[in-house]
């Protein structure tokens, strides 16, 4: 790829925090790096991955509000975790974590256990059990790339 062809399709994926160096050929045929803000095919697949995650968060949120799942289930999805990872972060057994996703068991949890979850999610114990918090958080939506350049 030539240096002049390094794409600059900004979909705000890097939020202005950095640009990615891309190795490419300058006009003398020597490799050099050019910083890129993004490339649409890549932006698209990243957005697709986030779209799938956001859908999962939204559907879990509904279930938590409906009382089918405990708030832990919502925060688990929101933090992009799965049961195994949350078990590792809390130091609890996996089957216990699975159990705590059900409101029936969640409501009986001791303060010590609640604290473990709250710490992982960076919440206070009262925030962890707060359904209003779940209600008030809008489910994330994925942005769309409008401009799809033809290659």
């Amino acid at each position, binding site marked *: *790829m030539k240096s002049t062809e390094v794409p600059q399709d900004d979909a705000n994926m890097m939020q202005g925090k950095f640009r990615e160096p891309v190795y490419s050929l300058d006009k003398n045929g020597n490799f050099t790096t050019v910083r890129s803000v993004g490339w649409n095919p890549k932006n698209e697949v990243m957005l697709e991955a986030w779209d799938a995650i956001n859908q999962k968060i939204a559907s879990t949120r509904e279930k938590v509000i409906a009382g089918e799942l405990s708030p832990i289930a919502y925060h688990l999805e929101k933090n992009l975790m799965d049961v195994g990872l949350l078990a590792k972060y809390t130091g609890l057994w996996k089957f216990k974590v699975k159990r705590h996703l059900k409101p029936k068991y969640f409501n009986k949890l001791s303060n010590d256990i609640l604290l473990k979850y709250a710490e992982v999610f960076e919440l206070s114990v009262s925030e962890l059990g707060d359904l209003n918090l779940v209600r008030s958080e809008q489910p994330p939506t994925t942005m769309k790339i409008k401009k799809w350049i033809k290659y």
Partner: protein
Amino acid sequence: MDKILNFEHKQSAHCENGVVSNLLRYYGIEISEPMVFGIGSGLFFSHMPFLKVNGIPVTSFRPLPGIIFKRISKRLRIKFEKHKYPKPDIAMQELDKNLEKGIPTGMLVGVYHLTYFPDPYRFHFNAHNLVVYGKENDKYLISDPIMEEFRTLTYNELKRVRYAKGTFAPNGHMYWVKEHPGRPNLEQAIIKGIKHTCKDMLTIPIPMFGVKGIRFLSKKIRKYPKKLGARKAASYTGQIVRAQEEIGTGGAGFRYMYGAFLQEAAGVLKKKALKDLSYEISDVGDKWRQFAVITGRIVKNRNKADESYDAAADLLLEIADMEEKFFIKLKKAIS
């Protein structure tokens, strides 16, 4: 007392290369990122349908994390001191001791809690590398090879990313240069690195790796839409492109980087053939980008059945042929 080292930071495309390159520069050994990548044989391909992450088969354009590091230290005869600590607070104390002694220290961290990372990149990925080179006003000074500039992290922030959990959990792993030969023998190391990459890409007798692996993936992709349905097939395909194009994993990007390596190697070994080959691998990189365009479109039209799968599979076969020819020539060029 706060101590600040005169540590020069250069941004790189891949964290493992970048950390090694930045650390060695501090000790007066100037080795570019592509050089680290080439000597460490960082170019690879594997597709393992039975190994799944989030329910999606793993396709990888790199060897396992840590391998480039291992190879480069062996081939350049640089000794690294490496440690893991069961207790987070002790890991932080040891880091402080190192900084007191003026040793820039590399470490493994999890990306998810890295505060300076852009949100779309914050997944639970645990094999990111960075260098801590000092402490100022209770903040650690960070040289993160992905970033353009220096960054800082507080004690708690750093502790948290050093003790991320899950696959490849870093457990406070840190490393620093213990001994180095001053002027390393680059010629020999380059030849070893190239030979290893050729071997990996051409001769592993399992069809999931190297050039054979690309053909294997081609076969699989062709079947995706029928076997999985539109939505899931798009997710599977999207994962390949994410592995290919996201930071630190690159398919096309790695081909270009390998080109840059071959150009430098051509100068060191005084072999013009390597420079010609650098253009050839750049062309292969262009093909990988074409593949990303096709699969990107598949992902964009994810809810419709798409006929591009065949085109993607054909393109992969073409790439496999190109790479096979390339690595056979490369092997000849250095023997």
